[in-house]
């Protein structure tokens, strides 16, 4: 069963007088529970495609279906609700809220969803334990290493059981050993919680973890291999 269905999507940015075709005709089906990696050189359109899948931006043409719902053309407010309920994000630059502790960062998503305080706290601690941050619940982002921060970000992304977790170059700011650790954790979460992961990267090591590897170049899919 496919969780993401992308149908002939294009994205054109206007930069001054020239049109930049970031994506030109992408069609893609991603099945539930997968561990998909978007690979490709810089400027190939990986970030753009992830943003479209995450409802952060609207495509110029084509349509995107997420978990059975067409998300193209939804209002900003509906998109925000959709992101809150169905999508977990992991960003390259960790993007934690600096004034909140690790646990509070994870809880914040559930707070917006209206989960009661006690349940929030239990679930946040459980998922922080899963990513290997037992006992670091009350640390602020500034008191955590980059790898630890990114694990908090992964915990935040998966805590509310989203349909998909989108991660744009999650390991790019980490050294290879820490990056590998993070990937192990994401693989584990993928299996343990049956979460669907979609990544972008140009790092060979990350690609090795992929169950499916989609190669982009100049806004087109040039290769799609399932392993």
């Amino acid at each position, binding site marked *: 069963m496919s969780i993401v269905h992308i149908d002939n999507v294009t994205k054109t940015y206007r930069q001054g007088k020239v049109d930049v075709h970031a994506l030109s005709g992408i069609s893609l089906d991603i099945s539930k529970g997968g561990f998909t990696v978007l690979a490709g050189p810089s400027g190939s359109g990986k970030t753009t495609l992830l*943003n479209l899948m*995450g409802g*952060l*931006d609207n495509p110029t043409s084509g349509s995107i279906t997420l978990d059975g719902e067409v998300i193209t053309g939804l209002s900003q*407010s509906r998109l*925000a*609700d959709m*992101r*809150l*309920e169905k*999508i*977990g*994000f992991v*960003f390259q630059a960790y*993007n934690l*809220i*600096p*004034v*909140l502790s690790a646990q*509070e960062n994870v*809880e*914040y*998503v559930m*707070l*917006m969803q209206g989960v009661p305080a006690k349940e929030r706290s239990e679930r946040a601690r459980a998922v922080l334990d899963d990513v290997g941050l037992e006992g670091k619940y009350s640390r602020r982002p500034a008191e955590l290493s980059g790898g630890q921060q990114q694990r908090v970000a992964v915990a*935040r992304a998966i805590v509310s059981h989203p349909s998909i977790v989108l991660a744009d170059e999650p390991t790019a700011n980490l050294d290879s050993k820490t990056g590998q650790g993070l990937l192990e954790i994401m693989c584990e979460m993928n299996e343990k919680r049956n979460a669907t992961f979609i990544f972008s990267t140009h790092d060979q090591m990350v690609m090795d973890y992929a169950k499916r590897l989609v190669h982009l170049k100049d806004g087109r899919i040039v290769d799609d291999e399932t392993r």
Partner: protein
Amino acid sequence: MEILMAWRNVWRNPRRSVLTILAIAFACLLLIFMLSFQFGMYEVMINAAVKVQTGHLQVIAKDYDKDMKMRWVVEDPQAVGDLMLAVPHITAHTFRANGFALLSSRDRTYGGMVTGVLPAREREISSTASTIRQGAYLEPGDTNQAVVGSLLAKNLHISVGDELVLLGNARDGSIAATVLNVKGVFSSGMDEYDRSAIQIPLPYFQEVFAMRGAVHQVVAVCDSLTAVGPAQSTVTGNLPKVKSKRNLECKSWDELLPGLIQSIQMDLGGGIIFYLILIVVVAFSIMNTFLMAVFERTHEFGTLMAIGAKPARLTKMLLYESAFLTSCGIILGIAAGCALTIYVESTGITLGEAQGMLRQYGIPNVMRPELSWLTAVTGPFVVFFITMLTALYPAFKVRKLKPVEAMHAI
């Protein structure tokens, strides 16, 4: 948790927040102190004018306050006096009669306002007796004795013991003439009054000016300024019971001293303009702080929006933050403002030689602010209101953010 988050955000940049809080606090402090000072001064001015001149309430023949005609009299002062005894909050009353007269010393002549007073009762109501600089005040039983304003005495070149010839118009149109003995010289501090006023015993006045037992004013004082209004309506309600050819009316001090009220309004108006400028300056510096705070955190707002926060949530958080900042400033400002005001209230501020408006209304040269609920709360309330208004702009600016663009900003 959002309140907690807002609170922590306030302290992310402690120096900036402290500066903002201090700016707000300083504005509040200044407002409280200056308003208290102004109101303290007004109260002194009002009390001085009421004490020296008008009393709190006067019963007079209709329009006597506008045009002091000899024949517009209160014919039966005793009846009005009895009526006042029954009115709550009126603590004392007395009778006065006034006549314009030419006053001649050996070598000079000036016009002056001669007032007939009951010396014993006048002491309870006016401060003239306590402002005697030379000689003594009138006593019951005195006849052709007079106390004279200091500037008038100076103009006439007279002092205690000298004689003064009075020439005026009596009630019936005949000539009122007598020779007075200067018993004392008073100085109320109000130049205008000291330049023209002269007091003689009422019975003697009535004889000289052929008053046939009538007076011009029944003057009363109340136990507080706030009691004046109710007392006035009670007296007004009972006045028709007193028989009189010309209708009687009861006027309050503010109706009798329109000039004083105008001066206060002008002074207050000038003050308010200054306060508004102050508040606007503070508001702009606060707006700057809020805008910077929003601008710096654009990236973070982008993240929050990406994980599903709606702009309304961000707006709410920013408004919490502004409310915290403003409240801290205002609480601090009220505390400091009240402390300063109370301190100065106890020590007083010594002004130099009183000038202008102060001099005209007989202000002493040590001034004390007067802290009240009104002066303590008005300024800070306006500051709070304006600050929250300025905070709305940046708080609603985040609504325009788009998550992707916001996250691009660093």
